[in-house]
């Protein structure tokens, strides 16, 4: 979190009451959303209500043992994050304290209280290369220089948003800490690499544009049927065990974003550990560098203080906006937004606010939409374009999508990946229900796929959708009369659909090849199934019985394309297509 450097701490209030994460203080001179330090141990908190002489504070740390009468100090500044090089390849808690530094400072694997740490390392030096010269005019947002933050990412040092701008009078390359001045303006203003920004406030941009490029994910069902746009929003609701986290992690690994901000909000500790272990080892499919080089992790696990769960999504999106300002495409995953909503509910109930639906505060919908609104494809104030795509997992109680968090999220997001426990139970993964899911970006992304993958991308997809629809209807009949009672052409459709599901829609996130499927391969697998479909119906028309058609031995190989390495997949598909064709034609 930001170490409000220039604000002096005044000791000006006393604790009046303590109830879990909510503390009230008397005589505190503070504004709404100011950061305060609570009690003798100086626990960090934020002002969330002011009523007369009583200030209500949500505390970001455990409050056991804290008593009335202890002091409260206000910093006079709102909850902010430190922005600058060093955020990538780092894991933070919900208020941007680096967990590695906390481990060191606390000398323990357990999270102690009252320890603070700056969001970016103040001692480390970075190699600064100017992008402007003395005499150039710069305005707010302009890039004055770059720093190689990781092997993948050049960090752009920008004139901060609150600057007046002016003429550069001094700038040179060299090694600097984030607090040292790298450029000086004629106004006397000094520019450092480090900025601060209040997390609950959106960073400024010029304009939001309609997204036209997909955020390709390497997941066949997503790219193929329900694509997300760069700058788009998506929700993944599903009961426990249906694949929310695995899908989020697959996106974090394989989406073609420049920067990934991954927020573990109120979920399992080991899931964050898994990311910390895996990401440095896995290559980014675009650059080949370790994935961690483009990733910033934020962890407020389910047993960490609940108030910091409320703030972690804001910490994350503010960091995302900062990289967006540099002109990068950022993808942000929040797993799970339901835990964030529940944190709101818990705090709200301690404030004895009037509860809305299912005990959630009345402002739930407003908070959710304000958060997702921070996503988009933007024209930045420095003239570059950047995007933030937001993918939120939703954890509905009992898997029932009619609950308030799912419903309010659905009103906002444009891509809906509905997870299905029935599919998960039969280990059909990703367990994304192809009937219930949708993407409203499909049409606006089709031109990109036509240009970059295949002309008939959209047509082929439509064929897949139609076949799956027909399959859905036929399955209902099969449930009543059995498959053998259907006419042969319908039996054949069922077989084709079975391959669509098994060879195309299913994808094993744990298989080292199958976990990532480039769009070209997604297209080829679908093409192979369509080839079978077309040839098989010709054979059927020529009088070949359906059992013989589905018995050809080239057919089961369709299921092996996904696990065939990308550089062999083309030849493999060619072979299957010609074998299927040959074998089917030899039947008549």
């Amino acid at each position, binding site marked *: 979190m930001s170490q409000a450097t220039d604000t002096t701490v005044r000791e000006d209030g006393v604790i009046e009451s303590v109830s879990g994460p909510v503390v009230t203080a008397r005589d505190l001179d503070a504004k709404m959303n100011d950061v305060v330090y609570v009690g003798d141990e100086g626990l960090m908190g934020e002002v969330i209500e002011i009523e007369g002489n009583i200030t209500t504070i949500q505390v970001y740390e455990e409050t056991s*043992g804290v008593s009335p009468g202890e002091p409260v100090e206000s910093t006079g500044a709102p909850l902010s994050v430190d922005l600058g090089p060093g955020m990538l390849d780092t894991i933070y808690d919900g208020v941007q304290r680096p967990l590695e530094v906390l481990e060191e400072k606390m000398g323990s*694997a357990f999270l102690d209280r009252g320890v603070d740490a700056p969001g970016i390392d103040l001692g480390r030096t970075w190699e600064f290369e100017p992008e402007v010269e003395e005499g150039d005019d710069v305005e707010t947002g302009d890039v004055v220089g770059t720093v190689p933050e990781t092997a993948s990412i050049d960090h752009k040092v920008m004139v901060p948003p609150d600057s007046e701008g002016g003429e550069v009078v001094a700038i040179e390359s060299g090694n600097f800490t984030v607090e040292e001045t790298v450029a000086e303006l004629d106004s006397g203003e000094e520019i450092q690499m480090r900025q601060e920004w209040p997390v609950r406030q959106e960073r400024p941009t010029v304009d939001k544009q309609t997204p036209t490029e997909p955020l390709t994910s390497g997941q066949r069902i997503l790219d193929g049927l329900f694509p997300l746009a760069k700058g788009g929003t998506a929700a993944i609701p599903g009961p426990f065990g249906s694949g929310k986290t695995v899908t989020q992690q697959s996106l974090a690994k394989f989406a073609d974003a420049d920067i990934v901000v991954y927020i573990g909000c109120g979920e399992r*500790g080991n899931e964050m550990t898994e990311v910390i272990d895996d990401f440095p080892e896995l290559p980014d499919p675009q650059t080949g560098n370790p994935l961690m080089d483009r990733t910033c992790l934020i962890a407020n696990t389910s047993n960490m203080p609940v108030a910091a769960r409320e703030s972690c999504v804001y910490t994350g999106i503010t960091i995302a906006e900062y990289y967006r300002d540099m002109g990068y495409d950022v993808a942000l995953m929040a797993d799970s937004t339901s835990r964030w909503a529940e944190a709101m509910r818990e705090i709200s109930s301690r404030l004895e606010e009037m509860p809305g639906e299912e005990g959630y505060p009345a402002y739930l919908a407003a908070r959710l939409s304000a958060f997702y609104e921070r996503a988009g494809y933007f024209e930045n104030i420095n003239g570059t374009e950047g995007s933030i795509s937001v993918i939120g997992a939703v954890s509905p*109680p009992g898997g029932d999508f009619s609950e308030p968090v799912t419903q309010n999220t659905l009103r906002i997001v444009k891509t809906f990946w509905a997870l299905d426990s029935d599919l998960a139970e039969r280990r*059909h993964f990703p367990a994304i229900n192809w009937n219930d899911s949708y993407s409203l970006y499909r049409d606006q992304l089709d031109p990109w796929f036509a240009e970059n993958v295949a002309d008939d991308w959209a047509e082929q997809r439509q064929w897949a959708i139609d076949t799956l629809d027909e399959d859905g209807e036929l399955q209902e009949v099969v449930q009543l009369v059995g498959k053998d009672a259907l006419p042969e052409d319908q039996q054949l459709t069922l077989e084709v659909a079975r391959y669509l599901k098994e060879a195309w829609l299913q994808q094993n996130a744990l298989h080292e090849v199958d976990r990532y499927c480039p769009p070209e391969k997604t297209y080829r697998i679908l093409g192979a199934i369509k080839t079978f479909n077309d040839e098989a119906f010709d054979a059927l028309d020529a009088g070949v019985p359906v059992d013989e058609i589905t018995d050809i031995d080239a057919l089961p190989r369709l299921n092996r394309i996904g696990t065939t390495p990308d550089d062999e997949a083309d030849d493999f598909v060619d072979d299957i297509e010609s074998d299927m064709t040959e074998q089917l034609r030899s039947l008549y």
Partner: protein
Amino acid sequence: MKEYQTITEISGPLVFVETDEPVGYDEIVEIETADGQTRRGQVLDSTSEHVAIQVFEGTEGIDRQSSVTFLGETMKMPVTEDLLGRVLDGSGNPIDDGPDIVPEERRDIVGEAINPYSREYPEDFIQTGVSVIDGMNTLVRGQKLPIFSASGLPHNELALQIARQASVPEEEEEGEDTEFAVIFGAMGITAEEANEFMDDFERTGALERSVVFMNLANDPAVERTITPRLALTTAEYLAFDQGYHVLVILTDVTNYCEALREIGAAREEVPGRRGYPGYMYTDLAQLYERAGRIKGQGGSITQIPILTMPSDDITHPIPDLTGYITEGQILVDRGLNSQGIQPPVDPLPSLSRLMDDGIGEGLTRGDHGGVSDQLYAAYAEGEDKRDLVQIVGREALSERDNRYLDFAEAFEEQFVQQGYNTDREIDETLDIGWDLLSMLPEAELNRVDEDDIEEHYQDDVEAEVTAD
């Protein structure tokens, strides 16, 4: 320490007291009744003039004249290795007539969260000897894997079987001697059930390396909210200070949640789903997340909480919130139980989220993942056909469908069924899996590698004959 005689209100498990000195949140309180009994409680709300106290041992006998002392500290558990072999009540007092416990240390029972950066990802395969677990829902060291059961089902037999048979084959091979401990936390179970556990522990000699915490059905309900915390604090000490591999069995989490609901209602809180407190997710997480491994430390905490699903409903808030926190679940099924399957675990809704990193070449066997996936898919398909056969009859089904029906039946009778005293090696489990998969046509096996099919798939006798 100041003594107050200023109780203003007693309501259910709560006592409200006027104070004139500040009292810390969560602090421990002693209340002495007129007839000299002492009750302990904990501060739930603290303001400068009054506090709300939740009394662990029940409020019966407390009146406005009772005296209240604030101990100036939060609840502590005295920990020492000497706890091994001891039986304590739900508040941590010995009830086994053993010697006094001389603690090494007194630890706060709330427990601090493990820094996710400091965790070590669990990936050591624990062989439980139960095929449906080892083969399809593998347990690893440091995992939290609850048993979702319901009243009248044999979850205790299963938990005991796991506790008896659990071993780490890799270490045994290497001759490492690992110190293993069991912590048993009973919350509101019947004396009969408790005896079932105690008898088994005594019979097998497990008691010597166990610490037992007993809050029984007739013990105070509110005490149930601290019993698991005492148990887990002890577990943490043994695991992360003394290097033990600790297995924690907590039963029955449903009773724990009922106690939470009771306190919430007494405080007149806005209730969440079905009357349970809105913070129950966070509260349960503070128990379940106290499992795991820590970088650079030898020990581990593996948790097997048991819960009974009210009206067998998995969407009930107790199993639901649990499933959202734990690393999977093992489902005990009423239907399989009435078929006489032992243990009656239904693999389809069961899951082990940590399975993938604990199995495979060099850990268990290279074909493990594929076999598991294929068994899942095939059993699910067989279950579908059962629905269908009800409607159309077996004759109307295709040959393929009939094979799946036969498979599902054989799977239940040979793979899931094994009895509570059979301890199967992982190789045996996987071989049974292949025997069953060989009932299906080879072309149907699309989840296993072709090489593995080559090695393990048995062409049926008929096919062999014609091939010759």
